[in-house]
């Protein structure tokens, strides 16, 4: 049983941000800019050409910890979901991760340890940044275009042959199996800073880093849930339909 009060389209965007500042980084992904005035979510979505239902579901997922309406979300077109996921990638790669990196460079230790500790951390974070980049790049270049193509073909009942060929080369099950956990290094980094790294001289920087790491982790968890519980099952079903269609043709 869940007892959540959902955000509705009548809600003023300004008061929503007052009640949950974390949503600000989320609405930026819909290209909504500050200076909302008294406008409601509905008004802003209309003026920006944003799908209100989709916008509401996304902010409700991020706002309410236990809210994840799988069936409802699967009704939205893949292209819409993918567009949002890409915007999230940009937020991770261009905003969040550089900000954390900048903070890591500011950490200071006394004496000889400084250089050593910084070198270790820089190397670790560098690896992490590259891993996230590679992961998101692979999704944007291979996985997402594939899902959009499959959906389009299924909807318009065209390119079935080509779809089937693509499916034989790459299936969404590959993705589900390989969907490697970019959260693992993040969790390790949290533990390294909290438990194992000798305390830096400027603790306030370490605290800022941790705050950002926790925020990024939470965001990534939502992101992965959308991919694994919405994108994958949706495409799986379409693939199955295509397979059936293909085999019935041959008969």
């Amino acid at each position, binding site marked *: 049983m869940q007892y959540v009060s959902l955000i509705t389209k009548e809600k003023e965007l300004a008061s929503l941000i007052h009640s949950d500042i974390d949503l600000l980084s989320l609405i930026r992904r819909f290209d909504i800019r500050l200076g909302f005035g008294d406008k409601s979510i509905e008004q802003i979505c209309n003026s920006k050409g944003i799908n209100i239902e989709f916008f509401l579901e996304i902010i409700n997922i991020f706002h309410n910890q236990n809210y994840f309406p799988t069936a409802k979300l699967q009704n939205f077109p893949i292209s819409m979901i993918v567009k949002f996921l890409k915007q999230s990638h940009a937020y991770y790669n261009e905003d969040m991760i550089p900000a954390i990196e900048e903070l890591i460079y500011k950490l200071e230790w006394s004496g000889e340890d400084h250089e050593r500790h910084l*070198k*270790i951390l820089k190397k*670790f974070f560098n690896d992490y940044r590259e891993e996230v980049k590679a992961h998101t790049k692979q999704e944007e270049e291979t996985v997402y275009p594939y899902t959009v193509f499959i959906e389009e073909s299924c909807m318009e009942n065209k390119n079935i042959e080509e779809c089937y060929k693509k499916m034989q080369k790459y299936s969404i099950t590959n993705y589900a199996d390989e969907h490697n956990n970019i959260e*693992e290094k993040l969790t*390790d980094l949290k533990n390294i800073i909290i438990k194992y790294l000798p305390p830096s001289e400027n603790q306030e920087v370490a605290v800022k880093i941790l705050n950002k790491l926790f925020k990024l982790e939470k965001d990534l968890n939502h992101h992965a849930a959308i991919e694994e519980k919405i994108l994958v099952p949706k495409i799986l079903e379409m693939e199955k339909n295509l397979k059936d269609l293909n085999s019935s043709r041959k008969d």
Partner: protein
Amino acid sequence: MSNTSFIIFEKSFLKRLGIISLIKEIKESEILGDYNSSDRFSSIIKNLKPNIVIINKEIYSNINQQVLKNLLLEYSFTLINISEIKEENSEQSDESHIYYDEEKSDILNKIDQAISQIRGHSKKKEKQNNEISQREKAILACVARGLTNKEIAEDLFISTHTVITHRKNIVRKLGIKTVSGLTVYAILNKIIDMTDLQEYR
């Protein structure tokens, strides 16, 4: 650390709802079920194996005390009674007891206490071996140097199976999963020298 699990027995729907929403505020807690009577009490406990049972006094009095005793022994859960008013010279002073007219903070304190008691028990068992052993240090050094499980096994004259077991234990003890994370730990704790690693030069 796994979640602390709760089961609630309370007649009134509204009160049950209240207790549920309170428990939901507690970190790492989960509610396995909520019931309005003592029907099937034994089988519920046996099947769900809760850590904490919050139970209304009236429902509590309907349960055969011998049955309850045996269940407590076998499944070692903590009972928290909940009732209207404090009875003077109540006999169950050693059991947790919450009252409907208490403030949120008092109730949460009592539940917290019950949780930390349970955690205390399980922690003692875990604590004993959270130190990294010499053998594990040797394996950590190999992992940091980028060796595969097979290479480590050959280096240390042990089976690959043993290497895997050691690695699992290291990950559990340190809370670090990835090779790069383990490498950082190994360097910080001088298990390996940074200059020995190609990528840090």
